[in-house]
């Protein structure tokens, strides 16, 4: 029975993990959790589904969607994040400013695309056709999504070990202390928003064939990505991917074995249970590993 839901669960879980990785990329230099992340992903998916860019060859269309979302994220950094952090690196005004930016994006997308959903075909040679091997049901696109999420974790791991990644960790640990070493936190924040925006756009591109792209898809992804972040641990990209897989599989099991409408209840029930048993998530806080 588990074989039937395993790959779809892992594929959707990979999306939740990617949403959470986007949170991590932006959280590093700012200590901000970006509540507009879901809407950024929505824009990436909608560009693929309903804009002229989506009709370009897949690689170009994906790059275009990523670039557009990266620019939108940069605007968010300029208007909703840096002004707040400039006043105080420890203030929590970003909660309301990123939420407000999220609402603005949802409103703008609603006016631009109405409520019409759009279907996106997977890039050749992948497809959503279901195959069955030894009782395991899967599509080539689902497998590709899982593999891509793993590749993103490895790439972010490399970035983390680079000099820029080290500087990002320094800024996260002590913003003024980093400035005294010649590191410009504002410049790093900007670069992180560009990267995080591109990642959100890419997540939207990946999600579009699995979910029907629509202007309302952002909120669900935001919440499930946040669940993966809570369970996997802030700053821990491997942890959030594993958490995403776990939650995606539980959600798929809920849909298959409880009732089709109850998957979210099962998913968040599982999240609550994990957090009650392990308050810092599956692997604990990333920082705690060092002590």
């Amino acid at each position, binding site marked *: 029975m588990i074989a039937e839901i395993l790959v779809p669960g892992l594929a959707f879980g990979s999306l939740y993990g990617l949403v959470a990785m986007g949170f991590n990329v932006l959280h590093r230099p700012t200590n901000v959790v970006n509540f507009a992340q879901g809407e950024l992903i929505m824009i990436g998916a909608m560009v693929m589904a309903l804009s002229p860019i989506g009709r370009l060859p897949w690689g170009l269309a994906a790059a275009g969607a990523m670039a557009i979302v990266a620019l939108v994220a940069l605007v968010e950094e300029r208007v909703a994040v840096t002004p707040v952090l400039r006043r105080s690196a420890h203030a929590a005004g970003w909660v309301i400013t990123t939420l407000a930016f999220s609402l603005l994006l949802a409103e703008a997308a609603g006016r631009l695309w109405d409520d019409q959903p759009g279907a996106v075909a997977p890039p050749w040679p992948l497809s959503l056709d279901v195959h069955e091997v030894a009782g395991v049901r899967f599509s080539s696109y689902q497998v590709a999504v899982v593999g891509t999420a793993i590749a993103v974790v490895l790439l972010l791991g490399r970035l983390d070990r680079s*000099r820029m990644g080290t500087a990002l960790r320094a800024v996260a*640990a002590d913003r*003024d*202390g980093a400035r*005294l070493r010649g590191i*410009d936190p504002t410049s790093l924040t900007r670069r992180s928003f560009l990267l995080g925006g591109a990642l959100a756009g890419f997540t939207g591109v990946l999600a579009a064939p699995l979910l029907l792209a629509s202007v309302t898809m952002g909120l669900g992804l935001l919440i499930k990505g946040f669940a993966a972040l809570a369970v996997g641990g802030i700053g821990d990209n491997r942890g959030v991917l594993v958490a995403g897989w776990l939650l995606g599989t539980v959600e798929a099991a809920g849909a298959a074995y409880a009732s089709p409408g109850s998957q979210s209840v099962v998913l968040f029930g599982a999240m609550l249970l994990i957090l009650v048993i392990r308050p810092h998530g599956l692997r604990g806080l990333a920082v705690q590993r060092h002590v």
Partner: protein
Amino acid sequence: MKELLTVTDLSSGYGAVPVVRSVDFTVHAGEVFAIVGGNGAGKTTLLSTVSGLLRPTAGSVRLAGTDVTGWAPERIVPLGLVHIPEGRRLFTGLTVAEHLRLGLWNVPGGRSVERARTERVVDLFPVLGERMDAYAEVLSGGEQQMLAIGQALMREPRVLLLDEPSIGLAPVIVRRVFAAVDRLRAEGLAVVLVEQRVGQALELADRGLVLRHGRVAATGTPAELADGSALRTAYLGAAAGRTTEEGR
């Protein structure tokens, strides 16, 4: 000697509260300049204003002839002024090696520069060479201070601002840190040393000033500062200063 740091009529504070008032001093290459004074005299605020963490309300800071008044620290550091704040402010979750590598942030040069400068730091503080993979938070206080100085040296600065380097350290470690500062001075580095251990600071310094209520109470060589009443007044209050003067 070449004048590297010139602070003129510098004032700063927090909000409407003035802390540093009209401070003047200059520091030359190959010189240790001590800033001493009691708790709350404004020593740390003065250093933070010079390094750009705090914006001055008046006055100017010139670094090797360049007016850097009001510049952010990240703009001042590349010009060769590094501030090691009180408590070192090393980064949790970063190893010794990562701290040293971070010291080269935006410094041109590849692996060969990194290797050469790391070797120089390890030559000065051999214990760091044995602890390259250790996280900063698990180092002893002395090792942390050495790492903070070592990280600053990776950039080959011209001026080093050292705020309370001896705080929380055993006397033997303090001697080792001060010996390293002495060696850096001999290599031409200008060091501004803020220190609670007045005796040791003046022993090491070439010149210095006494800060009291944010103002310069006295300036001169260690002998001049030790002989005058300003030092006693700064630490023990006005009555102590008057008594010293009257006793002469």
